[in-house]
């Protein structure tokens, strides 16, 4: 069975976001409208909801839980070490960083799940520089831990491994970072014990910048999921959280149109890396 598509009209879209706000306290008014509508069709497929009216009815009666909804608002992990060329650039940046002080790296969670964070943790471990890193992880929402874990199917695991091998690091056993379960899936082992300093904070970059300035901010493929007026606010607050010459990483098809407006400069076009002026 392939995916069934549903055309969600603007009126139905408005009813859905209103119900999510009123009944669940989930504000998705800033979520990319077009992608949100597709996320709802994925949810409807999963729960075998046949039409929009049934979806609206189930939301009205709160027959779906908060987690069941968040599960589809978050973008599923399809591979780790996406864009190996980007990770090779990052390796050069980390290797050449002044080791006299800790490098502050911030991973900011939006609607993308933590594949980038977990990829970064593996990389820091493999480069043996975890002692030189202070890692801050920010999430704007309070969600269940199970939504943040990574379990890869065999196919996705192999794809991630292939991506990792493209980094041309000394050969390692990539599988050592995963626990294989009885059905052959690979669950990522959280590496908090490997990194001496992880600041786990709740921060919403739609509201303000963080006080503690950072050398590197990861926000790859996350602006995709925010609607247009909001992404400028987020960029401004991320830029204000960077130290001078600090680096902001976006996805390779995300672009800041007038970076100077945010006191940023594009320093790597193909990987969409911006530097704070």
């Amino acid at each position, binding site marked *: 069975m*392939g*995916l069934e*598509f549903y*055309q969600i009209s603007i009126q139905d879209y408005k009813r859905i976001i209103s119900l999510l706000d009123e009944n669940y306290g989930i504000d998705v008014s800033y979520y*990319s*409208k*077009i*992608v949100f509508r*597709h*996320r709802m069709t*994925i949810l409807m497929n999963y729960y075998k909801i046949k039409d929009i009216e049934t979806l609206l009815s189930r939301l009205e009666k709160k027959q779906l839980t908060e987690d069941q909804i968040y599960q589809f608002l978050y*973008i*599923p992990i*399809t591979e780790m070490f*996406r*864009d*190996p*060329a980007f990770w090779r650039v990052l390796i050069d940046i980390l290797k050449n960083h002044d080791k006299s002080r800790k490098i502050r790296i911030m991973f900011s969670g939006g609607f*993308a799940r933590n594949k980038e964070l977990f990829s970064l943790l593996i990389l820091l471990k493999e480069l043996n520089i975890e002692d030189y890193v202070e890692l801050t992880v920010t999430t704007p929402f309070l969600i269940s831990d199970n939504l943040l874990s990574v379990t890869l199917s065999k196919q996705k695991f192999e794809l991630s491994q292939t*991506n990792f091998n*493209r980094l041309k690091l000394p050969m390692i056993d990539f599988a050592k970072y995963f626990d294989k379960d009885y059905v052959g899936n690979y669950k990522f082992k959280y590496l908090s014990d490997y990194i001496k300093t992880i600041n786990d904070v709740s921060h919403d970059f739609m509201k303000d910048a963080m006080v503690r300035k950072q050398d590197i901010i990861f926000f790859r*493929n996350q*602006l*995709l*999921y925010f609607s*247009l007026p909001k*992404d400028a606010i987020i960029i401004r607050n991320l830029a204000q959280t960077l130290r001078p010459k600090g680096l902001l990483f976006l*996805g*390779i*098809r*995300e*672009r800041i149109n007038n970076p100077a407006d945010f006191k940023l400069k594009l320093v790597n076009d*193909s990987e969409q890396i911006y530097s704070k002026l």
Partner: protein
Amino acid sequence: MFKAIIIGGSAGSFQVISKILQHLPKDIPVPVFLVLHRLKHVRLGFVEALSIKSNIPIKEPYDKETFQKGIAYLAPANYHMYFDFGNKITLSTEEQVNHSRPAIDISFMSAAYLFQDKLIGVILSGANKDGVKGMVSVQEMGGVTIVQDPKDSQIDTMTQGTLNVMDPDFVLNQKEIASKLIELLK
């Protein structure tokens, strides 16, 4: 008056796309969206290869880029491509659909919804059924549908799969598709 052309293809479609782009006029009054299955980690080369003979510029869009007439937009590798109000292109890293990202169905459905009966949808040679539902959607929303003749397709899974579920406006061989597009745009 049409507002956009969208073309989907997979295995065996490169030469056909190249031929279509070669014959489209420089002053084509609509944007052309290309959704082609491609290797996800090969970023460079595809636009350049298509550009060699193309009569109109080809680019891979950035997220939230405003699309314009006279330009062909190629869905970037490993991203889905949607179309939104305000002439915006929206990209996403969501899960694959029909084992594909970009998925032809997603882009065709999105274009059908946005452009309604002002859209021309074209499906070409390919080895899976991605695009079949998208073409049905284009037709349901009143758009014009063109299917490459399966007998003319290098691999006919996509084109024959489409013909199995719908009756398109035109079934054409690769030499006829570009001239039909030009005729429809007049």
